[in-house]
């Protein structure tokens, strides 16, 4: 017995109805961009381990960069609208979402939130159009989950600052025009706006990645980089600065991975209905249906959680604990969905012809960056028990 399907894997719970018109328009426009211009090429970018820099201008023209910021040519969209953009981009590829997240949330946001008027005027309008690309340098070779142990220093020389150290795993590092670099000073950890053409600044790309391949990841080398006094972000003091910035980006991740999971579910459902073995569609076997039931549950829950977090952010009730919950839950769900989708697609599932293995591989990065899965577990454990288990 076969009937028309009654659940739409693209929007299982009809969440569309809970979106405002402008949010839906923003979402649909991004979806169209992904379908028409990105999906036809993304497998090739992934295979060649690159992403065209020109995309930034295109994204800028469309208003994707710094979408959720006010002024300086940015749209001032709601957190939910920004999240939906991330969701659609990541339904394409995590690398594309990262390109936009890093620019808007990790590079523009700290300048917007913590920067001086001069820093904002100099960088934000050009970053909003994609003319200038930004990156965010916190992680170091010996300082990942424990950023407080960073070794990069900024010392005074007269009124100037001298930055010295090394940053690792920096998305968009070698294509950036400006780096927001976090360094240790006599006055604790501070952020610096570093034009990448400053003497002493160099980058080296990280090769051989098996995840997030449609994205540039680099090492930043800061060899006594001399900066004027005005290079420091006046509004950020201590680790709270970079942690606030990461929190901003994580909301986009909660939405983004729900998009990747949705894309995997859609691919799996489509495949299960059309691929035949033993004389019937593989979707007719109970084991396959069990997998689909598990996947659709995860996707629906992830979408619902993301939307709830977006609305809480708008209402001003969102806390870092909530964002940790969102990242912890949604990324592991998305990874589970991608891996299961991979099995449903059989041998085809391991190729770039289909999106599932690409998503599964990408999500390994998402599990680790922006706070590892384990670190978010510790945040949640502490939030529930009041007992810190970090050290």
């Amino acid at each position, binding site marked *: 017995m076969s009937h028309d399907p009654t659940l739409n894997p693209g929007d299982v719970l009809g969440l569309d109805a809970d979106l405002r*018109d402008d949010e839906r328009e923003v979402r649909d*426009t991004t979806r169209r961009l992904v379908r028409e211009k990105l999906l036809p090429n993304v497998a090739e970018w992934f295979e060649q381990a690159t992403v065209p820099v020109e995309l930034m201008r295109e994204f800028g023209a*469309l208003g994707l960069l710094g*979408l959720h910021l006010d002024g300086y040519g940015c*749209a001032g969209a709601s957190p939910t609208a920004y999240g939906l953009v991330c969701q659609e981009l990541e339904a394409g590829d995590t690398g594309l979402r990262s390109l936009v997240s890093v620019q808007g949330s990790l590079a523009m946001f700290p300048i917007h939130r913590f920067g001086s008027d001069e820093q904002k005027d100099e960088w934000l309008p050009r970053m909003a159009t994609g003319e200038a690309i930004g990156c965010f340098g916190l992680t170091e070779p010996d300082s990942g989950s424990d950023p407080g142990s960073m070794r990069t220093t900024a010392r005074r020389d007269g009124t100037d600052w001298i930055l010295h150290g090394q940053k690792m795993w920096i998305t968009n590092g070698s294509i950036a025009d400006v780096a927001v670099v976090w360094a240790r000073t006599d006055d604790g950890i501070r952020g610096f706006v570093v034009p990448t053409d400053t003497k002493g600044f160099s980058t080296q790309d990280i090769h051989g990645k098996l995840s997030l391949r449609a994205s540039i990841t680099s090492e930043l080398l800061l060899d006594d980089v001399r900066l004027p006094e005005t290079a420091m972000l006046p509004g950020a003091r201590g680790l709270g600065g970079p942690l606030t910035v990461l929190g901003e980006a994580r909301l986009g991740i909660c939405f983004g991975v729900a998009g990747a999971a949705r894309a995997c579910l859609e691919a799996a459902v489509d495949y299960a209905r059309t691929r035949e073995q033993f004389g019937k569609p593989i979707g007719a076997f109970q084991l396959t249906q069990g997998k689909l039931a598990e996947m659709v549950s995860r996707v629906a829950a992830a979408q619902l959680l993301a939307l709830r977090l977006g609305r809480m952010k708008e209402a001003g009730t969102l806390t870092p604990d909530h964002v940790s919950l969102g990242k912890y839950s949604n990324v592991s769900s998305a990874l589970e969905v991608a891996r299961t989708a991979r099995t449903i697609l059989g041998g085809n599932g391991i190729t770039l012809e289909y999106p599932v293995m690409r998503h599964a591989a990408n999500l390994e990065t998402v599990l680790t960056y922006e706070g590892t899965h384990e670190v978010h577990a510790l945040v949640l454990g502490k939030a529930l028990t009041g007992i810190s288990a970090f050290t």
Partner: protein
Amino acid sequence: MTKIVVLVKEVPDAAVQKQVDSSTGRLDRSGEKTLNPFDTHAIEAALQLKESGALDVDEVVAVTVGPSSAVKALHKAVSLGADRSIHLTDDALVGSDVVGTGYALAELIKRESPDLVLAGQQSDDGQSYAVGAAVAEYLGWPGLTQVIKLDVDGQTLTCERQAEYGYDTVKVTLPAVISVGDAINEPRYPSLKAIMGAKKKPLESLSLGDAEIDASKVGEAGRKAVWTGSQEPPAKAAGELIEDEDTAETVEKIVAWLDDRKLI
């Protein structure tokens, strides 16, 4: 300085099944609505005229006649680049036919006195392909349909029309009403910033009284076309399906089929 009015219509989303409601004789327009996709080509044409400097355009105004939900179509038009919009909405407009819609639009256009009116070639629901012509008639301006290329020289437009066989090249002097074919351009993506800002751009909402439009010429009252009934198109005989198992054999079968019918 030049002003362009673009006629835009709200239509049911392409995914919505369209049917005539037999109790009212009108199209059932329930379900998700969107901006008529053909009208995005008219907006794009206006923006290209403005951006290329071919015309010294200082304003692109989107105009619609439709129910209160049609503001969504206007928001979309503005997010694509129109500067402001006008919405004529009135209970007395319900059931307007092409002529009534054309009359109401013409009255709105007179209030704006633009130099150029652009429309889509057809709506995705009514599909009369006729509103542009009705508007031109009421205004007494030259009207052209199916235009797929527009060149401007001063007050003269040289238009290429897609005709049944080949193309017509037609010159018109402004003001004029031009319905553009969807081959004229590739509409841009709306910028997300414009989408978020669309509700802040001026939108003028008018009733028939506000616009001094004669209510007897629109709606049920002014309707000249009346829907009397509909039927399914006659079913076509099912085609013959040839399974391609052995290509040489398949080709032979196709050739034999064509030969039987004296087609080759």
